């Protein structure tokens, strides 16, 4: 690890002030940042430790929702009685990720900001436009099994690797962000960016902005499923994942909130997919139509071509499970 200065941020204002500097990064759980610092992928001159700033609580909100502190751990979130009862897709998504030791340390804010697992990004001897703008993308013609099939650019085809944010996207959660210009709320669906010509920009955080919490809307019920397809049944990143909140009324879809992991540089939410289901009775033909819409613009890069049929089948299977008995 390169030498750095360690500063414990004494207040949120000071944390913003510190991280507004180009050479300073916030550290929360450290499970992603320290990993990347050991690999010299991240080389900050200063770390601002935000762990003692207090926004670690999980609290009911006035509108019946729930506010998850950015510093609450993934475990505290997944095992919280209200998350288990009212937002089971979120508990399931978190529990499907990493390991208990990692989830015990990982924070909700850090989880949203975790960086891609692209092998070229994490190996400083390889070309990577995200890590070193202009150096090229090793993955496009290389090892691309984990890579994206939607929303890619000719600069970068990396995926956002996390699980939690996929569930948050399906749930319509909002990130609460604080900076020197005040506070703002950003829907998780809009928090992450597509790579475009600036693959090093992964989310909408401006310098000095800190995530303080995540607001979940009032619970909507329904059948909630998080299906993660991976190479082994535990402790692996998603090849494809689907977060689904499904409700049928009189045998027809009355709610279909869907988000997808492993497909793009962000949790993928395409409102047209859910919309095509609404008002229709479940059927194989309808599920295929939903997959057609989802994958209309999908493009593989050789090694990850399998993700296109895999995403189709996973969506099909989740919809079939959610509507079992009704179709």
């Amino acid at each position, binding site marked *: 690890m390169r030498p750095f200065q360690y500063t414990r941020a004494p207040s949120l204002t000071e944390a913003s002030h510190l991280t507004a500097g180009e050479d300073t990064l916030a550290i929360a759980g450290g499970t992603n940042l320290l990993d990347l610092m050991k690999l010299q992928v991240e080389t900050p001159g200063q*770390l601002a430790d935000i762990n003692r700033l207090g926004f670690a609580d999980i609290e009911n909100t006035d509108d019946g929702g729930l506010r998850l502190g950015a510093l609450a751990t993934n475990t505290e979130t997944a095992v919280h009685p209200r998350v288990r009862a009212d937002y089971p897709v979120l508990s*399931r998504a978190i529990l499907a990720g990493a390991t208990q030791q990692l989830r015990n340390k990982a924070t909700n804010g850090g989880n949203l900001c975790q960086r891609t697992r692209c092998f070229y990004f994490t190996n400083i001897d390889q070309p990577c436009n995200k890590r070193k703008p202009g150096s090229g993308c090793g993955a496009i013609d290389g090892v691309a099994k984990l890579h994206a099939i939607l929303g890619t650019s000719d600069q970068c085809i990396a995926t956002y690797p996390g699980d939690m944010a996929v569930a948050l996207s399906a749930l319509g959660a909002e990130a609460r962000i604080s900076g020197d210009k005040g506070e703002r709320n950003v829907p998780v669906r809009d928090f992450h960016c597509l790579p475009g010509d600036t693959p090093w920009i992964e989310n909408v955080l401006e310098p000095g902005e800190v995530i303080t919490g995540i607001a979940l809307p009032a619970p909507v019920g329904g059948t909630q499923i998080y299906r993660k397809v991976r190479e082994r049944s535990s402790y692996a990143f998603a090849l494809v994942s689907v977060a689904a909140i499904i409700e049928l009324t009189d045998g027809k879809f009355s709610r279909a909130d869907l988000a997808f992991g492993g497909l793009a540089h962000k949790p993928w939410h395409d409102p047209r997919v859910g919309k095509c289901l609404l008002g229709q009775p479940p059927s194989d033909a309808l599920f295929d139509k939903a997959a057609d819409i989802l994958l209309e613009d999908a493009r593989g890069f050789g090694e990850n071509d399998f993700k296109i049929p895999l995403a189709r089948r996973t969506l099909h299977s989740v919809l079939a499970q959610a509507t079992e008995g009704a179709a």
Partner: protein
Amino acid sequence: MADTITVNGTAHPVPDDPRVSLLDFLRQHIGLTGTKKGCDHGQCGACTVIVNGIRINSCLTLAAMHDGDSVTTIEGLGTPDEPSALQRAFLEHDGFQCGYCTPGQICSATAMLEELAANWPSDASESLEESIAISGEEIRERMSGNLCRCGAYANIVAAIEEVAAGGRS
């Protein structure tokens, strides 16, 4: 008062160099070499310790972030004369071959039993809300962050299962 980290009941000053991981602090600064370094990247679990009752990977956290915290390592769980229930069960079930992963396995399992007692669900749990039935499947999922290069898994699970079931005392 200087910043300190309490390890197995004894307070130690936090190291000056912020780069020191909690793992290197334990092994190199205070000489507790029971905790092992496998990958140094959060992937193998050999470095698992218990901080304020919670198991974490000590390789992916800085010692400087832990002042005021209370850390339990394998040395704090039992001694050769008075092993903990899990330490004894690992011996009885041959829950290791080379033994390199064992301190991490035992620290991990020790905290895991508390998580089970608190009814924390896992990816293997049928229900998020009902009380969790202890099974081999639950134990394997909950211990998936501890790799064993020797493949002693079957005996590791048997040792933990015995203690989880309230086995012999």
